[in-house]
C-alpha cells in the first residue's frame, strides 16, 4: 500500500474538507439561483467562480452578444499588430465546463421586490441573488454633435468590436501626412492609461507606414495617468509626432462636427483626417434605469461583498462601480468579481468566509517592444476601497526590462482571458 507523506495527506484531506464544507442543502431542495447580467470581464468572472464554488448554485448569465471582444489589447489591433479575432472569446466553456446557462438576450428591467429580471423577448428570470455588471455607457449630450451617427464617422472604439475595426480601417486608408485627432475623456473613465496607450501604438503604426502623419490629443483633463512614462516614451520613440493639449490650453472639447470631421474646442477647430472621440462615461444604462447609480452616474457598493449600497440583494462589479481608489480596469473587474462570487457563495451555502484580496495589475504598451506595468493592492477601509500598496514602472527602466514587460503582457493576456472565459 502506498504510504502517504504528510504533505500529500494534508493536501488531500484539505480537499475532503473542502467537499465537507460545500453547500449543506437537503436532497431535493431547489438550487439557489443567481442571475448575472453582463458577460464582460466582471460578469463572466462572477458567473464562472460562482458556478465553480458550489454545485448547489444555479448560475444564469445574460449577455446579448454571442462573443466578447476585449477592449484591452485592442490598441494592438489599431496598430496592425493583432487581429481582432485573437481578442474575441465565446461563452461555450462557461456552459460546457461550469454548467452555466448563457442566455443571449438583453436585460430590460429589474424588479428587486419580485426578484425578477425581464428580458427584451418578454421572458422573466427569477433569482435569489442578482449580479449586475453593466460596464459603461456614454453620457448623452456630453459633446454636442456626437450622436450615434457621428460615432460611425468618428468612432470611439471604446467598446471593442465593430468600432475598433472601423477605426483601424480609417487609419489604414488615411493618407500619409494626415492628422489623427484623439479626444480623451474626463475622469473617471474606463482604463485610465488606455487613450495614451492608443496614441502610442497608433504612432508606432504611423512610424512604419505613414511617417509624416501627426497625432493630436485633445484632453478634457490637465494631466493623465502615468504621464511621465508616456511623455518620455513619446520623446524616445516618436519625436515630434504626438502633441498633447490639456484642457487648460484649449478650454476643452465642446462640440463635434461629423460632416467636416472636425473637433471644436473653446478656442479653435481642428479638422481631422481621422478622429477618435472618446466621450465622457457613466455606469451602463441598466444600472441607471434600475436605480443602482447615484447622482455621480456610477454605482456605490459595499467594498466587501459588492452588494449595491442602494438596492439590497443586488451586487455590482466592474467599470460601473465607484467607491474608492480602484480604477476601472479589466483586472479590477476580475478581482472584484471573485470577491463578490465568494461572498455570495458563502451567504447562499453557509460556507466559511475569508478576507478577500483585491488587486489591479496593468501592462501598458508604449511601443510594440516597450511596455510598463503597475501593481496595486486594495482593501476596504471605512466603506471604501483604499489603495494599500502601489508600484509602477519608472522612467529610467532599461529597454530590456521594458521588452520583458511587453512579453509578459502577452502571457498575461492569454492567462487572463483563460481565467475569465476558459
Amino acid at each position, binding site marked *: 500500500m502506498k504510504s*502517504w507523506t504528510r*504533505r500529500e*495527506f*494534508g*493536501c*488531500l*484531506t*484539505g*480537499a*475532503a*474538507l*473542502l*467537499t465537507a*464544507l*460545500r453547500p449543506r442543502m437537503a436532497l431535493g431542495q431547489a438550487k439557489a439561483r443567481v442571475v448575472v447580467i453582463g458577460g464582460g470581464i466582471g460578469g463572466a468572472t462572477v458567473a*464562472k*467562480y460562482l458556478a*465553480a*464554488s*458550489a454545485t448547489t448554485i444555479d448560475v444564469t448569465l445574460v449577455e446579448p452578444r454571442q462573443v466578447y471582444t476585449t477592449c484591452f489589447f485592442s490598441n494592438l489591433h489599431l496598430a496592425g499588430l493583432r487581429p481582432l479575432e485573437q481578442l474575441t472569446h465565446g461563452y461555450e466553456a462557461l456552459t460546457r*465546463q*461550469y454548467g452555466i446557462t448563457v442566455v443571449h438576450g438583453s436585460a430590460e428591467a429589474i424588479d428587486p421586490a419580485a426578484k425578477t429580471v425581464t428580458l427584451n423577448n418578454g421572458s422573466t428570470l427569477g433569482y435569489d441573488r442578482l449580479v449586475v455588471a453593466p460596464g459603461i455607457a456614454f453620457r448623452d449630450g456630453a459633446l454636442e454633435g456626437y450622436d450615434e451617427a457621428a460615432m460611425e464617422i468618428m468612432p470611439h472604439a471604446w467598446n471593442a468590436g465593430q468600432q475598433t475595426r472601423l477605426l483601424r480601417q480609417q487609419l489604414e486608408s488615411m493618407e500619409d501626412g494626415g492628422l489623427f485627432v484623439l479626444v480623451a475623456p474626463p475622469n473617471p473613465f474606463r482604463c485610465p492609461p488606455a487613450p495614451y496607450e492608443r496614441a502610442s501604438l497608433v504612432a508606432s503604426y504611423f512610424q512604419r507606414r505613414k511617417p509624416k502623419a501627426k497625432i493630436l490629443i485633445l484632453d478634457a483633463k490637465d494631466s493623465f495617468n502615468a504621464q511621465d512614462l508616456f511623455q518620455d516614451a513619446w520623446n524616445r520613440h516618436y519625436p515630434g509626432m504626438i502633441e498633447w493639449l490639456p484642457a487648460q490650453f484649449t478650454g476643452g472639447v465642446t462640440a463635434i462636427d461629423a460632416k467636416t470631421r472636425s473637433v471644436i474646442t473653446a478656442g479653435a477647430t481642428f479638422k481631422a483626417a481621422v478622429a477618435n472621440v472618446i466621450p465622457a462615461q457613466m455606469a451602463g444604462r441598466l444600472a441607471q434605469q434600475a436605480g443602482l447609480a447615484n447622482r455621480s452616474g456610477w454605482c456605490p457598493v459595499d467594498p466587501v461583498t459588492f452588494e449595491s449600497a442602494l438596492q439590497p440583494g443586488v451586487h455590482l462589479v466592474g467599470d460601473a462601480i465607484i467607491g474608492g481608489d480602484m480604477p476601472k480596469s479589466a*483586472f479590477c473587474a*476580475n*478581482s472584484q468579481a*471573485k470577491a463578490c*462570487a*465568494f461572498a455570495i*457563495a*458563502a451567504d447562499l*451555502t453557509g*460556507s*466559511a468566509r*475569508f478576507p*478577500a*484580496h483585491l*488587486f489591479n*495589475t496593468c501592462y501598458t504598451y508604449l511601443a510594440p517592444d516597450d511596455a510598463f*506595468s503597475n*501593481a*496595486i*493592492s486594495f*482593501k476596504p477601509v471605512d466603506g471604501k476601497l483604499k489603495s*494599500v*500598496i*502601489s*508600484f509602477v514602472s519608472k522612467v529610467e527602466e532599461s529597454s530590456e526590462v521594458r521588452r520583458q514587460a511587453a*512579453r*509578459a*503582457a*502577452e*502571457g*498575461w493576456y*492569454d*492567462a*487572463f482571458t*483563460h*481565467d475569465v472565459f476558459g
Partner: protein
Amino acid sequence: MRLVVGFAIATGFVLLVSQSEAAAGADQGAQLAATCASCHRLDGHDKGIPPIIGLGEDRLTSAMLAYRASQSPSYIMHAIALSLSDEEIASVARYVAAQGRNPP
C-alpha cells in the same frame, strides 16, 4: 480506522480532480489561487509569465516569502506577497502545489 481515512482521502482526491481549476468553495487556498489565476494559468500552459504549476509547496512558499522581502525581480509579485499573511501564503502554496500534481 485506516480504511476510513483511506476512503476519505480517495473521495477527496476524486472530487478535487473532478472540480475545475477555478474550484473554490470554502477552501482558502483555492480562493487565494483564484488571484494567481488572473496572470498564471493553472493548467500548466503558462507562457510569457513564469509558470507556478509544477512547483512544489516548499518552492512556492519560499518564492512568495522572497517576493515579500524584495521588489526585485517583480514588484507585481512583491505587491501580491506583501498583502498575504504567512498562513495565507502556506494555504495558497499548498493548493497550487496540489493542482500541479493533478493537472486538469
